[in-house]
């Protein structure tokens, strides 16, 4: 093991190298670009023996690695924001074909207007595609999740592609010390590529031909079953990885300060760091607050969220995305899981990279706790945590059903 100072993007590149990926294809988009730059450099120097395929678009990039993976190669791509949206059709193809594949998504806001900073709208846009979707909090976890993604995706209980989400700039371009495992250790831990079938002249297999409607239905059922099985696989891989490399994250949800908590902040991505800081501050003031960091938005960790909700006085869910006309996407899942069990507030914050501090988060939680203690029960699905300069000028709490 070597400790290196790496940006989140380089952490992805090193993990891809350690997984001995054979085919890479990508189209550059900020803030993903340096992942592929680093990988091309590795391929160029011979450090990584892989085929790098240049393409004209993200649609083609995913189609290329999907084709390579269908033919039996361990393949990888990375994108962000508009690139991911442009891929969207192939995102569906890859998942429903049940071909293992790994993609890094560097979370970035969607235009117009142009904005290159972090929010989670691009990732949540992929929510229903059948990909396993994980979101990291910091650079070490980016490397660990990327490595684990190959193991999870290629597990015969799963056979679904997996996205590794990392926040644009906050992780992608910020350096931090990262433990990089040795190649021999990874070779020993990561089994050779497995997949349910592969397409080659000698296999005579065709993928995606028209099927009768009833069989189409059953294919969808099968994907849901795989997602359910993936929950167990994710927990297992996290535990085994911990034994081997010394780092475990609690599986689908990482719970911090949760033991005796009355209230939980539910959040995903790098701003969970601010949430943890907020929880520590609030504890100093006597509030018993914990942080449930959602590491996998798909498969949805419903069991764990329900368990927390059952013993909580309230949940404050922070979304860095919105489903216009409804609520935050994370809140929607939490509410569907925990409705009726406890009080809830759904907060929209940090859109387009607008700054949210630990104090901002603590303020929202403090206010929520006050309201719950006063009224007994609170259901506020849409609470706007406006950027500091607009705060107080608009109504933060909206009455929506």
């Amino acid at each position, binding site marked *: 093991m070597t400790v290196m100072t790496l940006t989140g993007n380089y952490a992805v590149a090193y993990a891809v190298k350690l997984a*001995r990926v*054979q085919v890479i294809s990508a189209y550059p988009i900020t803030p993903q670009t340096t992942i592929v730059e680093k990988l091309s450099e590795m391929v160029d120097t011979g450090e990584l023996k892989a085929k790098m395929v240049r393409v004209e678009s993200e649609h083609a990039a995913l189609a290329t690695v999907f084709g390579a993976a269908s033919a*039996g*190669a*361990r393949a990888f791509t990375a994108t962000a924001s508009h690139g991911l949206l442009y891929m969207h059709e192939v995102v569906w193809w890859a998942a*429903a*074909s*049940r071909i293992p594949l790994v993609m890094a998504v560097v979370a970035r806001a969607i235009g117009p207007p142009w904005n290159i900073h972090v929010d989670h709208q691009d990732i949540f846009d992929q929510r229903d595609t059948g990909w396993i979707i994980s979101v990291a909090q910091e650079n070490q976890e980016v490397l660990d999740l990327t490595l684990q993604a190959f193991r999870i995706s290629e597990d*015969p*209980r799963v*056979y679904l592609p997996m996205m590794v989400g990392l926040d644009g700039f906050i992780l992608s371009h910020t350096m931090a010390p990262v433990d990089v495992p040795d190649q021999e250790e990874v*070779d020993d831990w*990561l089994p*050779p*590529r*497995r*997949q*349910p*079938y*592969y397409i*080659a002249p*000698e*296999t*005579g*297999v*065709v*993928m*995606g*031909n*028209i*099927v009768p409607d009833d*069989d189409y239905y*059953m*294919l969808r*059922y*099968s994907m849901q*079953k*795989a997602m359910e*099985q993936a929950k167990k696989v994710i927990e297992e891989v996290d535990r085994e990885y911990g034994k081997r490399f010394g780092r475990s994250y609690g599986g689908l949800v990482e719970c911090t300060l949760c033991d005796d908590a009355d209230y939980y902040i539910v959040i995903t991505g790098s701003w969970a760091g601010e949430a943890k800081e907020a929880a520590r501050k609030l504890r100093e003031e006597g509030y018993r607050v914990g942080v449930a960091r959602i590491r996998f938005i798909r498969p949805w960790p419903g069991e764990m969220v329900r368990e927390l909700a059952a013993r909580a006085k309230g949940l404050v869910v922070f979304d860095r995305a919105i489903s216009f006309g409804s609520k935050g996407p994370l809140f929607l899942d939490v509410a569907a899981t925990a409705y009726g069990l406890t009080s809830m507030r759904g907060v929209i914050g940090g859109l387009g990279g607008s700054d949210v501090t630990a104090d901002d988060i603590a303020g929202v939680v403090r206010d929520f706790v006050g309201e719950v203690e006063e009224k007994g029960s609170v259901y506020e699905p849409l609470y706007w945590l406006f950027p500091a300069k607009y705060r107080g000028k608009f109504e933060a709490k909206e009455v929506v059903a």
Partner: protein
Amino acid sequence: MSVGKSARGPIVEAPVGFFAAPVSHPAPGAAGKTGTWRDYRPVINEEKCVKCLLCWLYCPEDTILRREDDMVYVDYEYCKGCGICASVCPVNAIEMVPERGGLE
């Protein structure tokens, strides 16, 4: 070492649990007797045919068949009646005749 690839290809391991993939193996009539879909039937006039084989080449269903002497004939079990053969024939040797007498 070659991770991820056995000598002949990747490791194909059976999935666990209920599994379905949209995979098929091409075979004659994999979608059933597609000849029943046909509204117009291509009829080849052997007197006119010059054996250029364009129809044989263009037929999307591989249902123009070819004899030893290169005279062509139609596999009506699977011909869908699209009419491409008739439209590419340079000497108008293929006529599209309505099926079941119902479409005149």
